[in-house]
């Protein structure tokens, strides 16, 4: 799982509109995928560190908790309904968000688009 987020890290740093969107976002986010924990540390929109957990010494602003199968479906080019958005995962009990949710909401487009960077592009008929 950490490789996926390291790829997201590389992609984010090559995505100027997201770096601009996240220019005020300097926080650590906990990602929990089943038993695995990852800490994503953002500095002014850049994902500067992806650190495996667990860690009792790493404070985080908000957490997104899910499972590997749900994330795999989330990252499909055309995800099935409910798996197409982090809030969809929450509505079916396959995702959980806690911590400073207002911080997430203020940066919601940024965080959702960062999470979706691992989703391959698809062609959609006009």
């Amino acid at each position, binding site marked *: 799982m950490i490789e996926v987020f390291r790829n997201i890290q590389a992609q984010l740093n090559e995505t100027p509109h997201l770096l601009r969107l996240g220019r005020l976002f300097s926080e650590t986010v906990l990602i929990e995928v089943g038993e695995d924990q990852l800490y994503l540390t953002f500095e002014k929109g850049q994902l500067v560190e992806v650190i495996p957990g667990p860690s009792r010494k790493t404070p985080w602003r908000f957490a997104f908790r899910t499972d590997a199968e749900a994330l795999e479906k989330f990252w499909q080019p055309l995800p099935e309904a409910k798996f197409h958005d982090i809030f969809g995962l929450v*509505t079916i009990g396959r995702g959980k968000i806690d911590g400073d949710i207002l911080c997430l909401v203020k940066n919601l487009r940024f965080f959702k688009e960062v999470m979706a960077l691992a989703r391959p592009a698809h062609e*959609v008929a006009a």
Partner: protein
Amino acid sequence: MSIEPITGRYVTITVEGAPRRIYFEEAGQGRAVVCLHTAGADTRQWRHLMNDAEITANNRLIAFDMPWHGKSLPPEGFETQEYMLTTEAYMETILALIDALDLDRPVLSGCSMGGRIALQLAALRPEKFSGFIAIEASDFQPAWYDIDWFDRPDAHGGEMGAALVSANISPYAPKAERENTLWMFKQSGPGIFRGDLSFYTRDDSLIARLGGIHTAQTPVHIIVGAYDLTCTPQDAKRTADAIAGATLAVMDELGHFPMSEHPVGFRPFFVDALSKMPSQG
């Protein structure tokens, strides 16, 4: 260069005892179909259907911006008011607009909160309409979010609202129309999305009224997208089941803003809905 057939004008109506300057658009001829936009948006959601020559050959589509939305002004003194939409004011606005445009029993077609109010009018004022197309509409939806998030001095409510509602757009939607749909939320005035959501997520009065809707006189057709997290197919089915004679269509590849997010995908469902409505008012 091509000039679209949609025309826009203004009309002043009275709501809650005070004037409201309303912007409305129309296209087509024949049976009148009044189209209601969703929360936090405006008439632009309907532009694809209004530009569809086959649909407008026999249907006069009319869409208007609710007060405080789009190009309709808020009431005088708005700067000291807290915008909170109510069922009563919403119904009064629609009925006043219909009278002002001298429409004789139009079809009422609304999406999301527009679908909710269409069902309220089906229950309470059916004599003013010939039928109801309720899109992404259900009896009641409590909020799974805090509506106060979207009206804060320290953040852009429109940006946050757009980021939230993007969860309701299907991945099958063309990228350009997804973004055009979200743009309307980003443009909505401060507190407007919150005020619309107050109506949508707190007023559950429709539940007890559904049994009083008589579809033999005024047909009710409900349409729902599988990718809608706010009004799910289960919510729409529950609502349709509570209205004797109501029909339901589920769109597997669409979300909460079908006419706006994926006009090509939505078109056959809207054409089917129109075919279920009386040909004249």
